[in-house]
């Protein structure tokens, strides 16, 4: 049992990790074929996993409806929506448009239900950015003052009207406000981003090597 639960996955991880790492250093056709096969194998596993995931959602929500749990109405909506979408996709042969160029059933659901729902959720981000910015820009010390001033320049510099106003005040020959914004984004901001990126990349290499060598077994849980 321990062999199946721990040793075998570790062995597969070591052999698979080493093999795919070696294919990176080998330009042969076999290497690229192996990488493609690995990717395809993953897609197959992922598809099977998604099937079981959806099955889990159906069983869980049917159970809630059957028991009449609090909020079971939402589960009912989910089951009906899942069924209607599935049937529409079957009748539409998975195509977005019919042969006449009209929206198919699944196309209609996608265009008039899925896209607006997605857009609604995404548009919440606008409000959350405002509330998060309000908290982030509170001036508590000199560092937050620097952040506030820099952010103000960047935000205002991105607005065409403010740029025009700046030209009127500072004169036509003055350096445009957008130039300051570009400088901030391409220099201090970029330096910080690159530093974090270098750290991230090194971290990735270390985690990968640790996982392949079996030093880090946390993905299997602890013994």
């Amino acid at each position, binding site marked *: 049992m321990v062999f199946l639960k721990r040793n075998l996955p570790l062995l597969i991880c070591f052999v698979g990790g080493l093999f795919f*790492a070696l294919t*990176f*250093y*080998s*330009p*042969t*056709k076999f290497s*690229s074929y192996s990488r493609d096969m690995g990717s395809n194998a*993953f897609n197959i*596993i*992922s598809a099977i*996993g*998604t099937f*079981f*995931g959806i099955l*889990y*959602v159906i069983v*869980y929500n049917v159970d809630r409806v059957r028991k009449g749990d609090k909020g079971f109405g939402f589960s009912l909506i989910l089951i009906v929506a899942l069924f209607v979408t599935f049937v529409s996709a079957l009748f539409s042969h998975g195509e977005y448009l019919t042969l006449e160029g009209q929206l198919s059933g699944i196309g209609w659901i996608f265009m008039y239900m899925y896209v607006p*729902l*997605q857009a609604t*959720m*995404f548009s*919440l*981000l606008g409000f*959350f*950015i405002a*509330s*998060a*910015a309000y*908290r*982030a820009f509170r001036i508590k010390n000199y560092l937050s003052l620097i952040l506030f001033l820099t952010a103000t320049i960047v935000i205002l510099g991105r607005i065409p009207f403010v740029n025009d106003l700046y030209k009127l005040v500072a004169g036509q020959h003055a350096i445009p406000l957008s130039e300051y914004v570009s400088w901030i984004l391409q220099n201090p901001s970029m330096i910080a*981003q690159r530093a*974090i*990126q*270098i*750290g*991230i990349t*090194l*971290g*990735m*290499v*270390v*985690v*990968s*090597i*640790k*996982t392949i*060598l079996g*030093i*880090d077994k*946390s*993905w*299997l*849980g*602890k*013994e």
Partner: protein
Amino acid sequence: MTALFLLCLLQNDFHVIDYPDDDGTKVIAVWNVNEIPCQYEVRIFNGQGESIGKVSFSSTNKEYLASAVKLPFWVFDKNSNKYAVALKVPNQGKYKVELTKNNKLVATADGEAVENFFDSKKLNNLIVVLGFLVLIIYFAWIAKRKELFIRKLAGLDALEEAIGRATEMGKPVVYQLGMMEIGEDPLASISLVASFGILGEVAHKVASYETPLLVPHRSPLNMVICQEITKEAYTRAGKPHLYKESSNFFVSPDQFAYVSKMEGIYMREKPATCIYMGYFFAESLVLAETAASVGAIQIAGTDALHQLPFFFAACDYTLIGEELYAAGAYLSREYSLLSSIKIHDYFRILVTAAILVATISISIIAVSDPQAAVNAKMLDVFKPF
């Protein structure tokens, strides 16, 4: 006539070589640079004498100079006094190449395309990886013998307090692994692997305090892995009877369907602690702001650069980039894992030193001799090929 052709051949030094480090689908035709402007055409023929490709260009076109070939200096001699034209071939084998100058045949040469087993272009990369390997083994050995100093990470030290608060309030701890599925994107999956390690430690603490744990998933594969990790963490804490299979639950693979479900959970359950460890996209701020509105303590860690500012703004503690990778080791305090944090630090020092040395030396050389070839060679060392 034959003597004239041979003279041209000698003057041109026209020859065909295998394209280095490829899968046997390219050859390079190389010959001396001509000072007098002219029009060149290079034709390639297979074993049956059929033309399979041609390249035409003006001798003034610098794209076909050897110096413009995108290969490192240790693989290909980028002598700027030569032309180098890469020609595609269907597979490995022998080919004949003809060079015409102003529509007159001046040289022919035979060449062979060979499939190379080792990609020596990536030698610089291999050396760095081998360096990492040596350091990992060395520090794992050192860590067994003496305790390594690891600086404190406020976000992880606050974990105890955050879980304690949830226990006192009788509210759940929510742990989210981000939006990636294991293996979906090799690079982003690494943060997921790191997140599995942190989940193990969080679940262990949560089990010790007998606090409810919620781990939502957008991937069924992640869910199966996390179920196993959580179960083992509860067993390790001596509370296997408290483990609930439903603490890990599948939500939706769709980004905003996932978000809407999580917002619902936040508003109904009002969790006391929310932990975000992994790769996030636009949902990061929606999730974090909703959790902030219900008064949850929030600890985030991500290697998604574009989401870091959102977590900074909305969360109480944020682990930046590589701190996420160190978190599992930091919490577990296992010597073999702690050693990797040290390796990480030493390599960062090495990289910083390399950047400084290269920047200063390249700048000095560029000022003293702008034509110096050594600069291009030095840059090759740092480039990915």
